[in-house]
């Protein structure tokens, strides 16, 4: 038992970050599932992190309330944003949400209360591992159930063909907005949790690199089901730790692994078991249709 306790103590931060990254991956999975490629989730994460940390510091808000306030703040911002960028698709949406993220980052860099470039330090470590993993379990379960629901099917229909979905009477606009706002809410919740793990936050923690990293977790893990993003986040958070002995070459290995996954496992790590089937489909030229 001691060995297990030691192991947990040594790696508790890693476990916390794995869980938070899994939540973030699910937040972007939600929008991808509805056919929207967004890169704004790092910004929503920042809003959750800053809101919860500031509420705790200046108003002494209880931790769960501060987290919830951060998530609500992000959702409140995501709703008008979602309505504005509603008509953009594909890379246009990605670039628009990315621009939004950069604007948020620059505002954080210029505002005195968020500590400008120094960010916020001394955030109390209130996040326990069970907070993270309970959130993850609830979110993963709900999203898994959602797939078979009316909303889940509507999202899938929109993803496959927006015009066809609209002609079937699906309220495309409402469903897309719902996915976007829920994704923001989830990212902000994860951001609040992460701020109370890492002790300090600054605007550059939530830059372009972070947005892309979240997307990599989800896509490389696999979009076909909820397990994919969780798996992707786990592998790509744990990988740097596992590659620690090769520290000088770590990024090179990571790049090579990422490349191999995207080339040989087009639908994500989660489809590893289906590799032979995928190959078969590739032979007949139908890998991405399946």
């Amino acid at each position: 038992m001691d060995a297990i306790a030691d192991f947990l103590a040594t790696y508790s931060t890693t476990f916390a970050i794995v869980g938070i990254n899994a939540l973030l991956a699910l937040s972007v999975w939600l929008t991808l599932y509805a056919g929207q490629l967004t890169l704004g989730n790092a910004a929503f994460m920042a809003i959750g992190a800053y809101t919860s940390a500031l509420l705790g510091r200046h108003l002494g808000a209880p931790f769960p309330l501060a987290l919830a306030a951060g998530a609500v703040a992000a959702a409140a911002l995501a709703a008008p944003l979602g309505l504005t960028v509603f008509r953009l698709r594909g890379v246009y949406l990605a670039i628009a949400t990315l621009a939004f993220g950069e604007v948020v980052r620059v505002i954080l860099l210029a505002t005195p209360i968020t500590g400008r470039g120094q960010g916020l330090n001394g955030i109390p470590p209130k996040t326990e591992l069970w907070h993270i993993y309970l959130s993850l379990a609830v979110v993963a379960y709900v999203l898994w159930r959602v797939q078979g629901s009316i909303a889940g099917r509507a999202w899938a229909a929109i993803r496959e063909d927006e015009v066809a979905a609209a002609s079937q009477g699906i309220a495309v606009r409402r469903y897309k907005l719902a996915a976007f706002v829920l994704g923001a809410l989830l990212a902000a919740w994860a951001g609040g949790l992460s701020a109370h793990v890492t002790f300090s936050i600054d605007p550059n923690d939530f830059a372009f690199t972070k947005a892309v990293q979240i997307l990599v977790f989800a896509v490389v893990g696999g979009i076909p089901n909820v397990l994919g993003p969780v798996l992707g986040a786990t592998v790509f958070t744990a990988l740097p730790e596992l590659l620690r002995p090769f520290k000088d070459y770590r990024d090179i290995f990571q790049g090579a692994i990422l490349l191999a996954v995207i080339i040989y496992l087009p639908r994500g790590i989660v489809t590893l078991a289906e590799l032979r089937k995928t190959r078969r489909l590739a032979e007949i030229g139908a890998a991405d249709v399946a």
Partner: protein
Amino acid sequence: MFEQLYNAIFIGSIYALFAVGFALVFSVLDILNLAHPTVFMLGAFAALFAIATLGLPWWLAVPIAFVATGLFGILLDRIAFAPLRRRGAPPLSAMISSLAVTLAVVRVVELRYGGDFITFPAGTVPSFLIHVGGATLEGVRLAIIGLSIALMLVLTYLVRGTALGREIRALAENPRAARILGIDVERAIAATFFISSGLGGLAGVLLAFAYNSLDSRMGLPLELRAFTVMVVGGMGSLPGAVIGAYLLGLGEVASLVYLPAELRDAFAFGLLFLVLIARPQGLLGQRPADRI
């Protein structure tokens, strides 16, 4: 005022060189090549290698960097994009594979040169001042402006007036039809990557010369600016990218003068966001119907 305008045109020229390559690949293959900033950085380091290690003069280092990054572009395509293209993978996959290459290549450069800012050996980079009226201008920047404009004219001729350009345009229009018509598609793609990456690398060398400074992450600020430039000009439109680049250069220099320093970056992204909302097809973009 005159000096600021001069600097705006200078930085706009760098943005233009960088962004036309980025836009070229996007217009031909619908790929957002996230390794383009890495190519930019590699150009600067290729010149450093030629000057500091091989002992060559700067005027030889510039074409060497162009060719080296152009060849790297072809290699990049073979490694990161060709396997995905054969499978007809969605554009998102190409973004991630180019990101993977970036991760590895930046690290390779850091293993050799470290992660800090470095300069060229003393006296190896040209530097001179010119006096116009009451203003003192850095002459290298003028040369860079001239070279950039000349290169963009050459590129326009290449795309509009040569057989290769016709093949590339056919490919952009419809890859399948291009193949049926007997165009060697893979060769046209290799040429596209050579030109795109060569220009990106050249932009890197020129910026490194102008500031006498280079580092392994110098391309990152250009990535988001290239998005801005492309969206403002119209996605995939080369003349649009050039106009967008100079507009961004002017806007940034103006915001440096009139806005607090912290808000400098906000200009580019605010502009990007506004254009996407108000006029998503950009200034010269066409085909809005099937894309957005």
